[in-house]
């Protein structure tokens, strides 16, 4: 996207007009809009989910709580927020791989991963990953053996899903921070291994 073509300019102008009308009516405070944007650009993002994963890798008791009641366990680390009222964490294991989608809109665990990437919201991902997850994952670079069961979680209500990836081999002795740095957003959606 150029961001500078005619349509984009017209939309930008329309949005600006709308915001100024709503500000005049007292329905929107531009400073509040700034703060929302800052929050989602800076405070929330995959680093939150990565810390949850790293903690679960290090602390078996935390992992047990996380899998039993994701909502309460992520709240322990302070990660409560919009699109995170009900959290379920699903665990990858040898022979089982999990992947998350929302085929009806683009539901996503904002409080743990931030706002979703464009591909997650695309018609291609939403339409295909429920029907042919193996093919979609392979296209995205994750080739799974046919013996691995793929479990797709289509977020059709207010439960938001986070994948707990398998801890990579050779990471003994790493700190929580070092482990968190190994966890990608895509692994927590389920389209990558690590």
């Amino acid at each position, binding site marked *: *996207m150029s961001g500078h073509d005619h349509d984009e300019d017209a*939309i*930008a*102008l*329309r*949005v600006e*007009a*709308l915001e100024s*009308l*709503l500000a005049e*009516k007292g*329905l929107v*405070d531009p*400073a*509040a*809009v*700034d*703060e*929302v*944007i800052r929050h*989602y*650009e800076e405070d929330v993002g995959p680093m939150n989910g990565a810390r949850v994963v790293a903690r679960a890798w290090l602390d078996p008791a935390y992992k047990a709580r996380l899998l039993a009641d994701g909502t309460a366990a992520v709240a322990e680390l302070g990660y*409560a*927020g*919009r699109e*995170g*009222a*009900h959290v*379920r964490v699903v665990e990858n294991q040898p022979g089982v791989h999990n992947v998350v989608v929302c*085929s*009806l*809109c*683009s539901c996503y665990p904002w409080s743990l991963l*931030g*706002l979703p*990437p*464009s*591909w997650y*919201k*695309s*018609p*291609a991902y939403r*339409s*295909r990953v*429920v*029907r042919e*997850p*193996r093919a979609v994952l392979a296209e*995205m670079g994750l080739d799974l053996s*046919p013996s691995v*069961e*793929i*479990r*797709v979680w*289509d*977020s*059709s*209500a*207010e*439960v938001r899903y986070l994948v707990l990836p398998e801890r990579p081999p050779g990471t003994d002795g790493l700190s929580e921070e070092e482990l968190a740095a190994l966890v990608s957003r895509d692994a927590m959606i389920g389209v990558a291994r690590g």
Partner: protein
Amino acid sequence: MNGIHDMGGLHGFGRVEVEANEPVFHTRWEARVFGMVQSLPGGNIDAGRHSLERLDPVAYLRNGYYGRWLAAMERSLIAFGVVTEDDIRARMRGRRRRSKAIRPVRNESSTAWQREPVASYARQVDRPPLFRGGQAVRTRNHQPAGHTRLPAYARCRRGTIVSVHPAMVYPDDHAHGRGENPQYLYTVRFDGRELWGGSAEPSTVVHLDLFEPYLEPA
């Protein structure tokens, strides 16, 4: 409603295109739309989703994610009489005459927007759930003209209950101003072959979170 938003299982959308190092927002207007929608009072997530679903199907596909948010927000504001199309156009003409509109200055210590406590969707009801974990169920042929969270691909399909959740706000009613009418929610597992027949990939299952009225005993 049977609309373009209900994309699960559709063919023809091609490869999943991944943008490397994607920013949170691609343009300023996307960020402003997101921020406005989040800070506007009186949000109802179910009504909001339904207004996205009711966009013209061509616009739904063409506008992209935040374009849809913008169109749905405008539709609601106009429907509630907050603004008119003429107001918006007049304001656009006024803005265009000024060379560059003054951007709101970010106030780093702003407390204008406070993160609200997270609102749970769970509700107490005085009846037990109809189904239990491990039970075989079948989805009903439920296809209302209004909002629903039962995707078309999972209608009239056999599955197994894997989790019984508390009762939660029922989107099919809440989206239409008919109150919360809480219903038990279940995570239901469907075998790929049950959903996709002979075209299913081997060893794949799909889980959906489905409300009790969508289900009947198998």
